[in-house]
């Protein structure tokens, strides 16, 4: 039904390449999150699916049909805008009904569907209000209602939660996932918020500077980031990255980095041997402050978050290293010299030149 395929899609604004040869295949019924920092081209990609931006190269197909030259109104997709983009002069009921009217549905059918959607999203008490009389959360639900009432091939959501406060965002996040799951409608969801991406997506596509970095299910992306960008972008805080070189002696293989060494398991050592110079990645939770640790560092900042603390250290060459500490542990002083222990199983290796993950050929 609603399969969505990007094939070599490119979009330029003047000299800037907003989206660079994007290939992406969103399966029918899947919720795929386009994740990336501001200006990475994710919204442009979404707008091209909606038909609000023209493609410079490549094709976009919805349900097997190339839609490059199809008008937005004929694409059978629904979009939820970051600003909600409700019709301010129409009541909530009329807003939700708007796309149905354009499709020429009869009055009775329209009324039935609007009521149904209003019940689903808890909007019945507000049907006769204008958007200006609603709270942010209510407007957001009206925007969702207007999208789902259509029963389209696909939903396009452009940071729909970014204007909500934190508590409401968590709630609505879960609601959207449940709704999408129940409706089974293909959804392309754009966000810069990795927590949203991790919790909502069946898969996540990470974009940077218009280039697709990696597409994978959330946990895969976290466990096996395909390159240093993904490694550093995902996770809060992101993965620590250090320049290093392989050293092998009787004691075993290690990666020599500024301030000491990082232990390597046998299979990682084998990968490193083939690669030459390395970028060594370690997540903050695979690090610990330990007098027997193999890295020397000095403490720059300690961020206490309640349940945990982030100890931000500096290696001799200035590289920052974030160590995640559980509550109740000894908190070091600023400027204190500490030793950091690295869990060998938590080490990721990337090629220093291209930033790609080093992996055994499958």
């Amino acid at each position, binding site marked *: 039904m609603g399969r969505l395929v990007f094939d070599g899609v490119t979009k330029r604004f003047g000299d800037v390449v907003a989206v660079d040869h994007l290939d992406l295949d969103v399966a029918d019924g899947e919720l795929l999150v386009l994740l990336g920092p501001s200006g990475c081209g994710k919204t442009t990609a979404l707008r091209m699916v909606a038909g609000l931006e023209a493609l410079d190269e490549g094709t976009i197909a919805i349900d097997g049909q190339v839609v490059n030259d199809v008008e937005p*109104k004929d694409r059978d997709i*629904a979009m939820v*805008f970051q600003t909600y983009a409700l019709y*301010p002069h129409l009541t909530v009921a009329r807003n939700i009904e708007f796309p149905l009217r354009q499709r020429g549905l009869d009055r009775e059918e329209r009324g039935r569907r609007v009521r149904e959607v209003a019940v689903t999203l808890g909007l019945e008490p507000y049907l006769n209000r204008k958007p200006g009389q609603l709270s942010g959360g209510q407007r957001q639900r009206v925007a969702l209602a207007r999208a789902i009432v259509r029963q389209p091939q696909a939903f396009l959501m452009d940071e729909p939660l970014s204007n909500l406060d934190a508590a409401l965002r968590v709630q609505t996040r879960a609601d959207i996932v449940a709704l999408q799951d129940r409706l089974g409608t293909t959804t392309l969801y754009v966000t810069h918020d990795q927590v949203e991406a991790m919790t909502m997506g069946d898969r996540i596509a990470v974009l940077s500077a218009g280039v697709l970095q990696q597409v994978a299910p959330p946990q895969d992306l976290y466990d096996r980031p395909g390159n240093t960008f993904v490694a550093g972008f995902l996770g809060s805080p992101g993965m620590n990255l250090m320049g290093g070189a392989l050293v092998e002696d009787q004691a075993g293989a290690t990666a020599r980095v500024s301030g000491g060494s990082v232990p390597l398991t046998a299979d990682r050592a084998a990968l490193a041997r083939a690669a030459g110079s390395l970028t060594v990645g370690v997540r903050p939770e695979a690090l610990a402050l330990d007098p027997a640790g193999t890295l020397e560092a000095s403490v720059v900042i300690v961020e206490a978050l309640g349940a945990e603390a982030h100890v931000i250290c500096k290696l001799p060459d200035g590289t920052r290293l974030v160590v995640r500490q559980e509550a109740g542990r000894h908190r070091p002083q600023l400027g204190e010299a500490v030793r950091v222990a690295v869990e060998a199983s938590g080490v990721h290796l990337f090629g220093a030149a291209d930033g790609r993950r080093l992996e055994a050929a499958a």
Partner: protein
Amino acid sequence: MIRGVELAEAGPVRRRARRVREAGLGYLLLLPALCVFGVFVFYPFARNFKLALYQTPPYPNLPSTYVGLHQVGQVLSSSNFLESLVTTVLFVVFIVPAGLLIGLFLAVVAQRQLRGIAAYRVIFSSTVVTSVAVSALVFYSLMNPVVGLLPWLGISPHPSVLENTTWALPAVAVMAVWQFIGMSFIIMSAGLQALPEDVLEAAKVDGASTWTSFWRVTVPLLSPTLFFALVVAMIYAFQTFGQIDILIGYQNAAYEHVNVLIYNIYTTLVYEENPGRAAVMSIALFAITLVLTVLQLRILERRVHYGR
């Protein structure tokens, strides 16, 4: 912040003293504007009411006599005034819808991102800065029965357009509309540019055709602008004077048929030398404009959408 603290500490007496001082300063700053308005607007306005109570005798050099409201009734029920009123209404009906629609149309066209569109924007808005006298002369030549554009187009009624009792008023209205297009275009363009882009995009994605989205989304969202333009257009139409004076004038055979209120006031005062009568009519014009504006504000504003 500092002012707030001071106010909180000051007692009620000191606070009042301060308020008086501040009000005094305010009026002092207003004084230059008050003087100008007083001399050129407020005093003539008040004087006009007094004039309306005095009847000018039919022969020159006789003193005018106080007749109270008698003259008001007389003038307002005279056929001269009523005919003039009908002409005015007709003139307004010619100008307002056409002026608004053409301005809106041009603004929509000029919204498109096309190469060289800026030049068109300048052209469309240029009538605002064109002097009435100059453009009236241009139209006068265009409508000239011998060398003008109209005979060239095969339109040459007899008597000529500007002396023709049927065509004189529409001809002046055409020019008045043309002159108003610039203002209308600027107001509409400003309104269109302020519309929320994403709402219009939402309409596209929601399946609305260009036509539907224009009438169902753009026009309602633009309604505050349309409303403002309507008020401006009405006032403009009621006050069009220069075009009539230059294109037609008092000597013209068709004069009676273009004698809108504002022109009637002028001719009554200048040619008939009857200030009493002119004063009554100008009060009537003032009252009509006031009532219309208030009505529009009351009725229309309630139906106009203001986006929040």
